[in-house]
C-alpha cells in the first residue's frame, strides 16, 4: 500500500461531504474564471492599443467634434507619419439590441494606421473606390451571415435618416486582441449628405488617430499638437491610444474593481469551507493520528497525509471547475452580443490563477489540522472522545 492510496481513501471516507466540498470548490473556480474572463475582456480594448498611435480629441469632451481642417495641421507636426480620423456613427442595424461599433472613417488612410485589420488588396481598393461601401469585421460577418455585396441598412440617430452601405470587404483580426466586430464606411459619404441636410454639422470629425514614428516621443508630439489649437474654438487633447482607451474604462473602473475583489472573496469563502471540512476530518481522526504516531509515523508523515488529503479534494475540485469553465465561457460568448465583448475567452493567466488558487486552498486549509495533529500528544489523542 502506498501513502497515496491511504490519502485517497481518507479523502473519500465521507463521500457525500467530500463530494459537496469538491462541488463547492468547482463552483468557486467557475465563478472565479468567469469573473476574471469578464474583467480581462473589459481590458481587451486597452491591450489592443498600439504604442505608436496617438488620439487627438476635443479638449472639453470626446462627444464634441473637431474640424476636418485640423488634419493637415496635425500632419505637419514633426514626428507624425500618418493621420487618419473617424466619427462615431452609432445608428440601428435590424433593432436596437444589435450592438456593434460603426464608424465613419477616412477610407484612404484607415487601414494604413490600423495594420491589425487585415483586408485583401482587392477588397481595400474596391472599398476606397466606392463611396457607399463599407467594411465589416469577420465576427460581425459571421454573426449576421453577411457576405461581400450585401447591403447593410442602418437607421441613423446621431446622423438621422436611412443609410445603406454595400459590403465590399471583410477584415480579419491580426491579433487575438484585435476587435473584429467593427463596421467602417466612408466619412466623405456621410459628410456629403450632411452638407445637404444639416450643413452646420458638415466638416466635423470625431477624433484623429495620429501615427508617430517614435513612440518615445509621444509626450512631446502630443503637446505640439495641442499647442497648435490653443485658444481656438475647438482646443484639443492628445494622448496615447492606450490612455484614450483607458479613459473609457474609467467610468466602469469601480465595477471592474468590485468584480476583481469578488473573484478573490469567492476563493476566500471556499478556503473557509474546505478548512472547516479538513478541521472536522482531522478532529474525527484524532485517535487514528495517535495510533499512527504510536506505530512510528513522524510529523512529516502526518503533514503529508493531511495536506495530501486536502490537496486531493482541492485539485479535483479545481480541475472539475476549470473543465466546466471552458464550455461555460464558450456558451456565454455565444449569448453575449459580439460588440459588447469583442474578445471573450479564458486567458492563460486566468487558468494559472485558478490553479494557484485551488492549490493554495488545499495547502492553507490543511495548516490548522496539521498544527493540531503535530501538537497533539499521543496519550491525549487516545483519551480524545470525538
Amino acid at each position, binding site marked *: *500500500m502506498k*501513502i497515496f*492510496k*491511504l490519502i485517497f*481513501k*481518507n479523502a473519500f*471516507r465521507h463521500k457525500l461531504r467530500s463530494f459537496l466540498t469538491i462541488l463547492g470548490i468547482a463552483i468557486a473556480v467557475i465563478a472565479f474564471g468567469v469573473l476574471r474572463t469578464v474583467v480581462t475582456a473589459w481590458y481587451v480594448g486597452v491591450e489592443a492599443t498600439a504604442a505608436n498611435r496617438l488620439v487627438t480629441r476635443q479638449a472639453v469632451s470626446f462627444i464634441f467634434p473637431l474640424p476636418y481642417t485640423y488634419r493637415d495641421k496635425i500632419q505637419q507636426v514633426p514626428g507624425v507619419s500618418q493621420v487618419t480620423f473617424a466619427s462615431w456613427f452609432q445608428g440601428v442595424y435590424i433593432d436596437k439590441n444589435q450592438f456593434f461599433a460603426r464608424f465613419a472613417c477616412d477610407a484612404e488612410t484607415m487601414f494604413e494606421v490600423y495594420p491589425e485589420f487585415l483586408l485583401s488588396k482587392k477588397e481595400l481598393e474596391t472599398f476606397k473606390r466606392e463611396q457607399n461601401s463599407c467594411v465589416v469585421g469577420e465576427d460581425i460577418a459571421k454573426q449576421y451571415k453577411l457576405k461581400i455585396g450585401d447591403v447593410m441598412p442602418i437607421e441613423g440617430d446621431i446622423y438621422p435618416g436611412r443609410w445603406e452601405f454595400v459590403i465590399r470587404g471583410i477584415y480579419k483580426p491580426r491579433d487575438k486582441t484585435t476587435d473584429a466586430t467593427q463596421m467602417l464606411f466612408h466619412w466623405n459619404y456621410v459628410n456629403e449628405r450632411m452638407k445637404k441636410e444639416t450643413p452646420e454639422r458638415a466638416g466635423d470629425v470625431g477624433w484623429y488617430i495620429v501615427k508617430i514614428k517614435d513612440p518615445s516621443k509621444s509626450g512631446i508630439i502630443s503637446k505640439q499638437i495641442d499647442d497648435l489649437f490653443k485658444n481656438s474654438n475647438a482646443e484639443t487633447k492628445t494622448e496615447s491610444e492606450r490612455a484614450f482607451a483607458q479613459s473609457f474604462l474609467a467610468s466602469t473602473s469601480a465595477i471592474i474593481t468590485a468584480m476583481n475583489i469578488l473573484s478573490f472573496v469567492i476563493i476566500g469563502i471556499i478556503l473557509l469551507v474546505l478548512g472547516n471540512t479538513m478541521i472536522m476530518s482531522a478532529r474525527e481522526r484524532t*485517535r*487514528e493520528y*495517535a*495510533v*499512527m*504516531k*504510536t*506505530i*512510528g*509515523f*513522524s*510529523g512529516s*508523515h502526518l503533514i503529508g497525509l493531511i495536506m495530501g488529503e486536502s490537496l486531493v479534494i482541492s485539485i479535483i475540485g479545481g480541475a472539475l471547475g476549470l473543465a466546466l469553465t471552458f464550455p461555460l465561457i464558450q456558451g456565454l460568448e455565444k449569448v453575449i452580443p459580439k460588440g459588447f465583448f469583442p474578445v471573450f475567452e479564458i486567458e492563460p493567466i486566468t487558468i494559472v490563477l485558478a490553479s494557484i488558487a485551488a492549490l493554495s486552498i488545499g495547502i492553507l486549509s490543511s495548516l490548522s489540522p496539521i498544527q493540531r495533529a503535530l501538537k497533539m*500528544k*499521543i*496519550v491525549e489523542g*487516545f483519551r480524545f472522545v470525538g
Partner: protein
Amino acid sequence: MPAIIQVKNISKSYTRDSFAIPVLNDITLDIEEGEFFCLMGPSGSGKTTLLNLIAGIDKPTNGNIFIKDTDITLLNESSLAKWRASNIGFVFQFYNLIPVLTAYENVELPLMLTHLSKAEKKQHVEAALNVVGLSDRMFHYPKQLSGGQEQRVAIARAIVTDPLILVADEPTGDLDKNSAAEILILLDRLNKEFKKTILMVTHDPHAAEKASKIRHLDKGDLI
C-alpha cells in the same frame, strides 16, 4: 535471563489547573527478555501510564527507562518515533484499526515506514495474519469483522515488524469471554512459540493467569 526493560526511579505527575497530580511514585522495575509480564491494579493506579512510558509514547517526570541499553527518556520525539517503529508492537483495548483500510492494509501500515520491497511486505503481512489465524479475512474491512477478529488484526499489526517488545493495554477489555480467551491464547503463543517479550496491563485476573510474572500497582506505587 538479562533484563530487557529496566525502569529506574520513575516518577510521573500531571499538571491540572496548576496542581501537580502524582501518578507514579519512584518506580523501579526490571522485565526479562522473553517474559510475559502483567501489570495489574485498579483504575487510576497508574498501570497504563507506566505502560505508555515503557512504550515511549509518554515522558516521565523523573527517572530513566532503559530498553536494551537505550535510555529512551533521552530520545527526542523524532528519534523516539523511529525507535518505536522498530522496537515496540502495540495492542490497544479498542483495537484502533483504520476503518477505511482492509485487514491486510491495516497490518501493512507499520511496514510503510520500512524499506521492504512490495513482495517482502506481502510476505510479512501474510505471515502475521496467518499467525493470528485470519488468512481468510485479509480483505475484510474492520466493520466486517467481529471484535475478537479486529483485535487479532491489531495483534497482527503489532507483530508484523517483529518488534522487540509487545505491549498490550487491556487487550481483552472490550471482548466477550470466548473472544478474550482466544486473544490470551494467542498472546501466550506469541510469548512461548515466538519468544516475544510481552508487557500486558489488565485488571482482569483471568487474563493475568497467562502471565509468567505479575506485579500490582496501587495509587502509583509498585507493590
